[in-house]
């Protein structure tokens, strides 16, 4: 079996190439950092060849988790060969990574990708000459048109069998001399490892390489002396010296092989950027785009589709057909009730919501694919920075309006640990697609469908993010400035219909699968617990096992105004999946089929909840710990159980405090009188204000900021 790794800069077309040669349909986006994990596939037509799609990286220095993933893979797991994907329209910057990949001591081929885009811009590249200079085959490709990709793979495989290795770049004489000296000093420690690569890493004072080599203090001191001497001579630090030398190498390559069009005018992307990132127009344009997205998915098209699915498909057709089928086969009464009251009601409520979510995913996919998403991060950076977050946190939050799971995963492009953790914790505060039914239920049942409730849910989500940003940034755990913003902006392009649909389906699929698995099971569980008593006899809901459990938990929520057992149970089932909340109410109020807004039991809700209690219930469910799937994503991104529990604890505590304050202050102002609950709310408010305005934690920040290298991924 042969393993081929695809490596290259972000947005250079690696995933397009991967899809083309494996025949799979991984999502391809138009913002840097779409591929955050490596993905594996098999070559179309030869299943013995494994293709690894690595995350897009600018270099092999481990500054961000994606880079660490790629670097560890290349140097520890050792693929059989590498195809380096170089964006021909941006060749100089892309060849920088090539200069590092050449040092990996692996057979390598270069795919000069997006060659058509380069030609369109009159960039002429002599691929043969470039291949001679690099000492490895260079093949012109256009992965999007499926041109040259087969040849690139074929050439790479040939190369692997011949055993030819790529040749590392040669630097200036001075640097080469120091590298030779270092090589001699570390030769024994490296053993049969990649001596040249280790020498460069040691010269750059790479912490990870030093750890692997376990150099003695004597040798380390000797090396440090040489590095310091060379730095003094060159009046620069070692890392910059190497970077500059690499660019000199690249410049030499480029000057010999590439001819640029010197009278190139402003590109269309530049013109669009002048307008959409304009000081005055940027925010209005952004708000208009967002309004359009939610107008399409929530107010108009999405709702029309969802109403049809709920009212016609799951309202009339499915229950009718299922019921008559069950009666026809003489199905037992309890099973009939399980299927109709439990499964059809619970799962139907969730599936009914899918069309609306599909439209939302479609819009978000369009924004990501056309290139605007990266600009949003840039525009929002100024605003987010005030709250201790970077503009890069905005992409996860925006994707989180569709679903928290991809949102949390998108946080991986954020370089600083503290910022990334904070983004992971706060992303799910924004109402995701699955929380929309809860909003629809409360606003429909208690607020005569006022659109204000929906808006207020987003405002509450954003407020929770901002408050958390300010408060957490002042604690010891997250102290320090938000990391400075630097992001490559991809060229704008019109997304392909197929691309957007694949992307939308990728995310919608997860919801449908969830409805068929975890939600189905949860519904059966809830139905079972709510239909039987402790002696496993069928009974009224009020006497069921679930009612007893609910009554035991409910007092915890009475300070929030909804210490009623049904609401307590719904909040707990919401942890499994937020879609469950509405369905659970449905089962508990004994309805066969429930629309996603739960319109059937609005009357009962009005009797059981005041407006205030209902709103408090809504806010709690929006802000508290997300569903299991999202908690799983948090766990993966945090890579630590401790941080995962911190996230869940923080979210739930914030949700509890917010709901309590809303309910208690609301009661006070609506003439409820000053009670013990009001006193607690006052204490919480005081605590919140203290945390918001206290002095930030400062000690030891220097030490943290001074630690130049973080290697915590993988």
């Amino acid at each position, binding site marked *: 079996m042969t393993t081929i790794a695809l490596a290259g800069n972000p947005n250079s077309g690696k995933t397009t190439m991967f899809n083309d040669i494996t025949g799979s349909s991984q999502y391809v986006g138009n913002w840097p950092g779409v591929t955050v994990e490596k993905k594996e596939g098999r070559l179309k037509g030869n299943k013995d060849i494994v293709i690894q799609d690595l995350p897009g990286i600018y270099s092999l220095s481990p500054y961000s988790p994606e880079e660490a993933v790629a670097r560890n893979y290349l140097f520890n797991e050792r693929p059989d060969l590498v195809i380096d994907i170089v964006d021909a329209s941006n060749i100089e910057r892309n060849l920088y990574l090539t200069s590092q990949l050449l040092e990996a001591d692996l057979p390598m081929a270069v795919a000069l990708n997006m060659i058509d885009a380069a030609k369109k811009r009159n960039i002429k590249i002599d691929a043969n000459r470039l291949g001679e200079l690099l000492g490895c085959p260079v093949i012109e490709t256009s992965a999007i048109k499926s041109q040259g990709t087969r040849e690139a793979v074929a050439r790479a495989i040939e190369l692997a069998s011949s055993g030819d290795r790529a040749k590392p770049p040669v630097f200036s004489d001075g640097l080469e001399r120091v590298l030779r000296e270092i090589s001699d000093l570390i030769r024994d420690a490296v053993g049969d490892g990649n001596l040249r690569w280790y020498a460069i890493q040691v010269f750059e004072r790479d912490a990870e390489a030093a750890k692997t080599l376990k150099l003695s203090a004597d040798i380390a001191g000797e090396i440090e002396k040489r590095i310091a001497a060379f730095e003094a001579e060159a009046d620069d630090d070692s*890392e*910059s010296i190497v970077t500059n030398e690499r660019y000199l190498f690249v410049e030499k390559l480029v000057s010999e092989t590439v001819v640029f069009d010197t009278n190139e005018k402003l590109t269309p992307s530049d013109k669009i*950027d002048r307008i959409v990132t*304009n000081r005055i127009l*940027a925010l209005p344009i952004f708000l208009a785009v967002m309004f359009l997205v939610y107008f399409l998915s929530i107010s108009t098209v999405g709702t029309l589709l969802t109403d049809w699915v709920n009212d016609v498909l799951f309202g009339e057709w499915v229950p009718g057909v299922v019921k008559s089928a069950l009666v026809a086969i003489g199905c037992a009464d309890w099973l009939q009730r399980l299927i109709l009251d439990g499964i059809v009601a619970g799962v139907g409520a969730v599936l009914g919501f899918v069309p609306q979510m599909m439209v939302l995913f479609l819009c978000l996919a369009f924004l990501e694919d056309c290139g605007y998403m990266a600009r949003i991060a*840039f525009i929002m950076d100024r605003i987010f920075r005030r709250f201790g977050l970077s503009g890069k946190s905005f992409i996860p939050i925006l994707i989180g309006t569709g679903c928290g799971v991809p949102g949390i995963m998108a946080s991986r492009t954020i370089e600083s640990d503290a910022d990334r953790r904070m983004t992971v914790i706060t992303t799910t505060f924004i109402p995701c697609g699955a929380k929309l039914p809860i909003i629809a239920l409360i606003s429909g049942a208690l607020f005569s469908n006022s659109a204000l409730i929906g808006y207020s849910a987003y405002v509450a989500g954003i407020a929770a993010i901002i408050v958390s940003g300010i408060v957490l940034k002042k604690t010891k755990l997250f102290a320090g400035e938000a990391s*400075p913003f630097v992001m490559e902006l991809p060229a704008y392009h019109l997304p392909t219909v197929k691309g957007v649909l694949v992307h939308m389906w990728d995310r919608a699929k997860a919801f449908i699968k969830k409805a068929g698995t975890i939600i189905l099971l949860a519904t059966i569980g809830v139905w079972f617990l709510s239909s039987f008593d402790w002696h496993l006899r069928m009974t009224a809901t009020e006497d069921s096992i679930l009612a007893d459990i609910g009554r035991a938990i409910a007092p915890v929520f009475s300070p929030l105004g909804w210490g009623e057992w049904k609401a307590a149970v719904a909040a707990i089932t919401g942890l499994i999946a937020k879609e469950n909340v509405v369905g659970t109410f449905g089962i508990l109020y004994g309805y066969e089929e429930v629309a996603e807004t739960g319109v059937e039991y609005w009357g009962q809700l009005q009797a059981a909840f005041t407006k205030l209690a209902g709103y408090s219930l809504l806010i709690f469910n929006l802000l508290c710990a997300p569903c299991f799937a999202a908690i799983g994503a948090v766990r993966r991104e945090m890579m630590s159980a401790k941080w995962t529990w911190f996230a869940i604890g923080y979210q739930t505590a914030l949700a509890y405090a917010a709901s309590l304050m809303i309910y208690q202050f609301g009661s006070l102002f609506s003439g409820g009188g000053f009670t013990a609950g009001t006193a607690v709310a006052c204490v919480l408010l005081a605590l919140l204000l203290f945390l918001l305005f206290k002095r930030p934690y400062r000690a030891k920040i220097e030490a943290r900021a001074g630690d130049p290298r973080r290697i915590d991924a993988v």
Partner: protein
Amino acid sequence: MPLTLMRVGDTACVTRVTGKDHVRSRLAELGFTPGSEMKMVAKRGDDVIVSIKESRIALNRDMASRIMI
């Protein structure tokens, strides 16, 4: 002078990137090395978008003010 003083449409060469931490290496990897030519594409206050080595890079003020022209 720092990059933030360039006007939209101006072109200039990088002379120096200040600072010593990894941010500087990051900028270097993205192409901000002495002698590289860049063009100011758009500005939003002191946040800038510049085009360098055929790619478009967005930088906030903290980053942009460390690049000298």
